[in-house]
């Protein structure tokens, strides 16, 4: 079990709850104690006054003068709990309330602390049960006379203190409880209000991630400003890193492909590579360079963005391009896409996905390619279908594997499908290959539709 909660909210709430509870309990105890002492002093004074009155009845010879042992009310009422008793060396006296019985006393009267000399005349308090379930409060005073020590004890019902104490404590505890509730409410409000910038920051960051904002709003509370500065710097570094990676990749592609092209051209000259072995090697380099560069380019895309790229315009551009690239193979492309359909993908990625798939279609089609698109919930389905030979059912899955060469024709490369799939999956979409109605391959690309 972890003692420190993971949530800042609960952490702060726990600290403030514990602190508030501790403060309230301390307040209740200390106020209670003060009150008790205050009320108890009244009882003590009454008992001490009685002790002072009857103390005069102890004669120096150790006997008790009954005339002086005056019994003031309420000490004369039996059963009231009020009582006193003198235990002198040669005589005793007790209040009428005791009706001749002994004052119920605990087995040992506490001697109390050894008090300083000036306090010697002060009675010491103790408490005990009277044997009938009633708590009594006692004051005991030891008076020294010539014949020895006389003990004078007075008792009063503790209840007399407790009733006013209860009456005072009840509203006190109630108001302390209310105070606690008020503090708790204040804490909650404070936490909600105090943590609000954190929620705003999270929303800002998710806006940045979704491409709605370039940076997190720097207008933040002082404590968050350094964090936001760091975050924005990180976002910039990330973007710069991505742009740098893309530039490096473009340079790398150019740097590899141009000499490779020169090599291919040289090797094609008569007599240079009679058995075609070197050309085969170069073709392998070519394939893997094309494959890995393509994958790397897909990986440096900035990922999902809140863009709305009109599909129909991209497709019609690509169809125009393909019609010219494959000018020697006249293919009728039927594009049926509602111009209102948009996808939440970077236009370049749409070009890359659709371009590779359309190119594939053009390579295989006998004469027709049908392209359509439809919104399906949060996604858009782009369907490209050709009337070519198609792919046997058993090989449909393998066709999407990277490096799989389905097309051995010159200039063709089999990586288009897998690159398109990787890109589509980067956007949370995918590619499904199936048998089409035109007799050839039907490629169904799923891409996210813009939100809202």
């Amino acid at each position, binding site marked *: 079990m972890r003692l420190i909660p993971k949530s800042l909210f609960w952490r702060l709430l726990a600290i403030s709850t514990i602190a508030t509870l501790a403060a309230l309990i301390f307040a209740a105890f200390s106020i209670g104690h003060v009150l008790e002492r205050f009320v108890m002093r009244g009882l003590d004074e009454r008992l001490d006054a009685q002790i002072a009155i009857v103390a005069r009845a102890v004669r120096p010879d150790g006997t008790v003068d009954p005339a002086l042992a005056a019994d003031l009310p309420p000490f004369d009422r039996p059963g009231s709990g009020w009582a006193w008793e003198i235990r002198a060396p040669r005589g005793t006296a007790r209040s009428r309330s005791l009706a001749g019985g002994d004052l119920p006393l605990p087995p040992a009267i506490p001697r109390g602390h050894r008090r300083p000399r000036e306090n010697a005349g002060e009675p010491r308090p103790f408490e005990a049960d009277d044997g009938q379930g009633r708590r009594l409060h006692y004051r005991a005073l030891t008076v020294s006379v010539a014949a020895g020590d006389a003990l004078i004890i007075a008792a009063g019902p503790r209840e007399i203190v407790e009733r006013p104490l209860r009456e005072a404590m009840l509203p006190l505890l109630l108001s302390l409880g209310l105070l606690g509730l008020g503090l708790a409410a204040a804490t909650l409000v404070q936490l909600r209000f105090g943590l609000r910038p954190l929620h705003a920051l999270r929303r800002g960051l998710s806006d940045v991630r979704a491409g709605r904002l370039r940076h997190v709003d720097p207008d933040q509370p002082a404590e968050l400003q350094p964090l936001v500065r760091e975050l924005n710097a990180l976002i910039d570094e990330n973007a710069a890193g991505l742009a740098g990676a893309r530039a490096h990749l473009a340079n790398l592609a150019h740097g590899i492909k141009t000499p490779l092209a020169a090599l*291919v051209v040289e090797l094609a*000259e008569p007599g240079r590579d009679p058995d075609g072995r070197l050309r085969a090697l170069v073709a392998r380099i070519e394939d893997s360079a094309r494959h890995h560069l393509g994958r790397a380019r897909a990986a440096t895309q900035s990922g999902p963005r809140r863009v709305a790229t009109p599909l129909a315009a991209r497709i019609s551009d690509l169809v125009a391009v393909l019609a010219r*690239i494959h000018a*020697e193979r006249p293919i009728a492309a039927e594009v049926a896409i509602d111009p209102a359909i948009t996808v939440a993908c970077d236009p370049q990625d749409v*070009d*890359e996905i659709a371009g590779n798939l359309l190119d594939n279609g053009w390579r295989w089609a006998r004469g027709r390619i049908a392209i359509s698109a439809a919104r399906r919930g949060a996604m858009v389905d782009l369907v490209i279908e050709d009337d070519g030979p198609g792919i046997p059912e058993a090989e449909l899955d393998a066709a999407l594997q990277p490096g799989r060469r389905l097309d051995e024709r010159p*200039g063709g490369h089999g990586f288009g499908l897998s690159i398109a799939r990787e890109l589509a999956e980067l956007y949370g979409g995918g590619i499904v290959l199936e048998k089409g109605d035109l007799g050839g391959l039907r490629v169904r690309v799923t891409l996210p539709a813009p939100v809202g």
Partner: protein
Amino acid sequence: MRVLLVEDDAALADGIARALRAENFAVDIASNGEDGGHLGATEHYDAAILDLGLPRRDGVSVLRDWREADVRLPVLILTARESWSDKVTGFKAGADDYLVKPFRIEELVMRLRALVRRAAGHAANRIICGPLAFDAQLGQFELDGLPLRLTAFEWRVLSCLMLRKGAVVERLELLERVYEGDADVDSNSMEVIIGRLRRKIGRELIETVRGRGYRLTAAPA
């Protein structure tokens, strides 16, 4: 047929030029965008091979300028930029074909020939003029169904006349399409080539249009 090759990588440019010359093309090489742009706008070429990442001026802007100046030269972009967006940009700028490096030289030659043929308005690969047939895909001539052996110069002249059969080709333009930019051209050389061609394919097929140029025709006027 004369081709403008705009490519900054010397090794690749030399390789391509050698391969194209072996296929009877005349090749002019420009190693930067400025020179290439200027040559394409001022000289007569049958086609241009244009790299995109060029020093001084980018290939796309060279191409745009050509098209704005109404230069109809068929252009094949030959580049390492293989993204489909780059291809769209290239075609929108006015390219006629697009080939990604590395490439097979046979494919470049094939695409170049197809480009020149289509630019001359021929939909089919085989162009026929009387007993003479030209396979524009393979770049081979046949006379009465038999292969015709030609020198590079003869091939250049005859293919040019063949692609525009029935029309008069100006003598000066014909010279430009046959000789590379830095060649020493003897003013009589065209007559010499035409004479040799006539001996090979028969006098009546190539008609001299006095003061203007030559015309290839199956039915002499």
